[in-house]
């Protein structure tokens, strides 16, 4: 620790690789953005590492740990560029993977296409074996016949094998037996067992998760190996840790075992950053709102932690349509993605109203104001017209703005819509805000909460520009804008604890539950989890272990996850379940019986070098007030002369009355009249309705 005190965060996204160097002793942090190198992402990461080290004036040997998030595996899934994967199922059920849920994601499209299974039928093979629902053996496993099937797959070039037997969540014996036999005979074959990857009831969801893991696993093994080696040869002594979808870190071999846990690592880190800055600002409930070029992402943070769901969808056919992706039963920070970003295009809809997004101008040609040939008005063009963005200080002055192109685009749009010139720009801003507020309302209702309980935390290039007005729509009275808005997720990783989520199926009525058996199950899960935490190097003395259960009223179709009380008693569990149920649904039905479906254990422990303070470089000598410029505010219905501040020249504790503009290189934070804004110790700005 003393010789290598620094932490390095690397977040590889589709376009940019974000890097940050953090010194936990004094909180100082330095940020760098490098272009991603898709052919070999490790190359861009290394290049960026050298540059961020140089910028920070640090040496490789000072880096004590490297934390990493990547979209690599998600992209492999979306582009269907994973391993040649086979599937072995219980005899009679190889088509479960293809038949799926039998539900449409789009009701009115006769030409609908469903996501193709990752394993085509010829590579889905069957084994003679059968377990009953309680895990007892009905038909013993025929190992030799199953091996012959696998041998044939290997002969055809299969590199990775998923094994998913019926009721394996209740008894993994058959999967393990064939897994061991296959591993012995085919040592180069990567193997994923459903009882290991997602031991939960519902065969299609379990198979989909296991197959996805098998599909990305060989890629993960090679890539992580390569990155680890490269960092070492760079002279970095620290270990490599991976960000999981659940918002925690893990070590390399756990990531190689179950890379399906990494699919949402980037967005999870973003939500985690939101949680961290929210906690720092003393806010318990935060709606993390990240708005970039093409999409906006929303995540709810309750009691300082991002909400985690135990399933999500990967590689959707239609990005914003629920049900169009591959179901993945893995603990994942809950994110809602909306087609609303700076590049979202404004157009007249078929019904003559103003539509904004989800279509985006992308990086090419980009918004009209980029002057790269874009002719349609976008959200960024609107923000520029309204004075929210500074034409002379676009991306910190790095980009020259074509104001005439923006004006032309709005003139055309106003003409098509038949509204007076000058009305369209705020219309675009307002409509895109309404789209995001609408999605937020639904997401919050799904949690049984109300928007007024939350503070909005704005990140991303466009988030701080829109947050104040979105908050007004939601009836939210506090908005936080953390520093380094453009590199939020890397900061989140640095602050992340190590975390393990494990699940065991437990299909028992509460009234007949054997709590000794429950305890034994939790003990087993805890041992497994602590082993992983220990190997991650986390401080397990300071661990937090939570015992949760998926429970429901008998007869219901889905479960809620409940934190279990200690000590475990029938009465205590009932109280906990009913309280959780009421919190979500306002009331409980009288007289209904309760059952367990699964037991979950979540263990986390702080990483050495994580947490603590954070301080981004300031310009303390600069003049904080940069001047004034005209900015449009809808409540007043007019443009007001508004003070513009250099946020990095502001001192902590300073308060500024709205309306005000706070500029930084990557973004601009706008607060309206009546706001009281205050600079917090970590560099965040907290704006409240006065």
């Amino acid at each position: 620790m003393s010789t290598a005190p620094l932490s390095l965060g690397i977040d590889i996204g589709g376009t940019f690789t974000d890097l940050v160097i953090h010194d936990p002793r004094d909180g100082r942090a330095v940020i760098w953005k490098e272009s991603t190198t898709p052919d070999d992402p490790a190359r861009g990461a290394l290049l960026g590492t050298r540059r961020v080290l140089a910028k920070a004036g640090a040496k490789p040997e000072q880096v004590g740990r490297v934390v990493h998030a990547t979209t690599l595996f998600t992209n492999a899934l979306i582009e269907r560029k994973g391993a040649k994967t086979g599937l072995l199922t219980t005899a009679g059920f190889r088509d479960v993977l293809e038949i799926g849920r039998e539900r449409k994601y789009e009701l009115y499209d006769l030409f609908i296409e469903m996501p193709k299974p990752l394993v085509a039928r010829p590579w889905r093979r069957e084994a003679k074996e059968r377990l009953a629902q309680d895990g007892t053996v009905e038909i013993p496993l025929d190992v030799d016949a199953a091996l012959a099937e696998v041998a044939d797959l290997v002969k055809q070039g299969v590199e990775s094998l998923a094994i998913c037997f019926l009721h394996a969540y209740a008894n993994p014996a058959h999967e393990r037996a064939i897994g061991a036999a296959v591993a012995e005979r085919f040592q180069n074959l990567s193997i994923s067992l459903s009882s290991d990857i997602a031991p939960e009831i519902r065969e299609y969801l379990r198979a989909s998760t296991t197959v996805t893991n098998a599909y990305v696993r060989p890629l993960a093994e090679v890539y992580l190996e390569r990155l680890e080696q490269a960092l070492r040869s760079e002279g970095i002594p620290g270990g490599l840790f991976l960000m999981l979808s659940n918002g925690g870190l893990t070590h390399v071999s756990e990531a190689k075992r179950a890379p399906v846990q990494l699919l949402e690592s980037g967005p999870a880190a973003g939500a985690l950053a939101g949680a961290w800055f929210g906690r720092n600002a003393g806010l318990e409930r935060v709606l993390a709102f990240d708005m970039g070029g093409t999409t906006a992402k929303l995540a709810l943070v309750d009691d300082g932690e991002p909400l985690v769901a135990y399933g999500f969808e990967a590689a959707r056919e239609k990005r914003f349509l629920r049900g169009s992706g591959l179901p993945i039963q893995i603990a994942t920070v809950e994110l809602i993605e909306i087609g609303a970003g700076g590049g979202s295009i404004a157009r007249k809809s078929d019904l003559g109203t103003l539509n904004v997004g989800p279509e985006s101008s992308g990086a090419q040609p980009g918004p009209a104001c980029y002057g790269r040939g874009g002719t349609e008005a976008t959200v960024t063009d609107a923000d520029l017209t309204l004075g929210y963005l500074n034409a002379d200080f676009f991306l910190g002055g790095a980009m020259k703005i074509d104001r005439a192109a923006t004006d032309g685009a709005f003139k055309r749009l106003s003409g098509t819509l038949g509204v007076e010139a000058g009305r369209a720009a705020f219309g675009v801003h307002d409509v895109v805000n309404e789209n995001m507020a609408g999605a937020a309302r639904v997401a919050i209702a799904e949690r049984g909460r109300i928007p007024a309980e939350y503070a909005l935390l704005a990140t991303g290039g466009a988030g701080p520009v829109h947050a104040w007005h979105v908050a007004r729509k939601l009836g939210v009275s506090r908005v936080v804008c953390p520093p380094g808005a453009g590199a939020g997720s890397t900061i989140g990783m640095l602050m992340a604890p190590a975390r393990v989520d494990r699940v065991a199926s437990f299909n028992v009525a509460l009234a007949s539950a054997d709590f000794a058996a429950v305890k034994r199950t939790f003990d087993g899960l805890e041992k497994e989890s602590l082993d992983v935490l220990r190997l991650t190097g986390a401080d397990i003395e300071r661990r937090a272990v939570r015992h949760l259960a998926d429970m429901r009223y008998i007869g219901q179709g889905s479960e809620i996850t409940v934190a279990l009380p200690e000590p475990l008693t029938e009465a205590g569990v009932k109280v906990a379940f009913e309280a959780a149920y009421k919190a979500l649904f306002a009331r409980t039905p009288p007289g209904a019986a309760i059952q367990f479906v699964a037991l979950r254990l979540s263990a986390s422990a702080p990483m050495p070098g994580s947490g603590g303070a954070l301080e981004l470089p300031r310009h303390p000598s600069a003049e904080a007030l940069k001047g004034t410029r005209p900015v449009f505010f809808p409540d007043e219905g007019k443009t007001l002369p508004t003070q513009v501040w250099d946020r990095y020249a502001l001192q902590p504790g300073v308060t500024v009355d709205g309306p005000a503009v706070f500029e930084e290189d990557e973004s601009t934070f706008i607060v309206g009249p009546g706001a009281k804004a205050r600079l917090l110790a970590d560099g965040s700005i907290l704006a409240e309705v006065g």
Partner: protein
Amino acid sequence: MATPKKNREFDPIELELLWRRLISMVDEAAAAMVRTSFSTLVRESYDFSCVITDAAGQSLVQASESIPSFIGTLPETVKHFLRFFPPDQLAPGDVLITNDIWLGTGHLPDITLAKPIFLDGRLVAFSATTAHAPDIGGKIRSPEPREVFEEGLQIPPMKMIAAGKTDETLVTIIRKNVRTPDQTMGDLWAQVVALDLMEDRLRSLMEGYGLADLTDLAREIQGRCEMAMRAAIRELPDGTYRSELKTDGLMETPITLRMELTIKGDEIMMDFAGTDRQVDRAINCALCYTNAMAMYGVKVCTSPNLPNNEGAWRPITLKAPEGCIVNPQFPAPGGSRMLIGHYVPMLVFGCLGQIVPERVMAACGSPMWGMNQSGVREGGKPYANMFFYNGGMGGNTRGDGVTCLSWPSNVSSTSIEISEHIAPLRFHHKKLRPDSGGAGRHRGGLGQEILIESRSDTPIAVSFLAERTLFPAFGIEGGKDGAPGELRINGAKTDPKKQYVVHKGDTISLGTPGGGGHGDPRQRDAAALAADVDSGYVTDRTAYG
């Protein structure tokens, strides 16, 4: 707060904002209902809907994921409520209820609730929901009942809550008449929560924007959709087009459905004259459901992306002779009305396909299939379960039909592992049926075969939702028919419209129908055919030449 104004005009920006807000309200209410409901059908299959209508019961917006049937029926039910309770008999805090099959959705488990919304003492809107109840009493769902009285509790239009006061007599009667009193009532209260939520959000929107009522906004929203629908219809050539198809019906007596669809300018008229009479089994399809399915059929062919509201339906009218199977009269039972109703969009395609063949698909392996079991557990406790399975979709101009997909409904199938937990059954396989997709340039989607064995020491009564066992899903444009469905008990072909009792060791095999093919199979892409053969989707290549 703005001052209310009358005769307001909305510019395209205001209109979009208000429209979005309305949609967000119904979606928010829908989200709350999904989370609170006991019914698996509500939670996993979105077998419910939320709507906001104007004061006349004309729909403005409907929850995005609502299934097509309720999109058509729910606003109509609100209009029926208004006939029973004119505005002067409504008060703030009222909640109206009915499950009448002619006023509602055609079968009793769907319960509709509506709440009048007042602003400054004036009726301005309704919030309304329909949801499939966990149970409504009566005979377990099957085609067997001869009259609606056998199908469960009938609730005529009445006030479940009058000015905030719950009708405890009604609640007591409901509880006594259903198998799952807590869950059925729990879901009704979940619906009330959704109604309240929509009321709350709508009132604050109207206050915030200074809307005295919804007349002006409704005129815009409905008017624009009406214009768009009329424009879409105007593109179609005028004329009268006819189609007919045969369904299994009662097996020994198949049923013929007929439609005459007339396009005149910007209007469509559909007439079911010539359709067979209603029957004394629960496959009759009440006009409200027929109407919803016909509208769905027209919409997917003309303007699939148009928002759902009253305006979109105005240019479309429908009639069916009283007493025919798509307009049955009291006391005809209708519990399994989808066994007729799910054919109705296909009748529409039969007509429109003559003029816009590129917009329709070949016949689907629908109506949906299902198996209902009821019995007594070892402890003497009665149980009942319904499992759903789907056939393949029809091929279309752009590609193959999707294999095993719910259409036109949207009900997911039950997990095998869950099924084995809740019923004393052992599943031997659930697999694709080779060669079940109709051959074509674009092949029909495959059906599936499920083999189930009883492991119960006590007898189990089973009944089915099963169609297209006699008349397969037809191909179009030269495509071949899909494989018909097949129901077998202990290996022997069986009449799916009857109820059976199975004992330990007995097996039931359900083979769902494949979709019809589209286009001449000899024109199928060679690589696609090779892949089909390789995957075993096709084992008999005869039709492909």
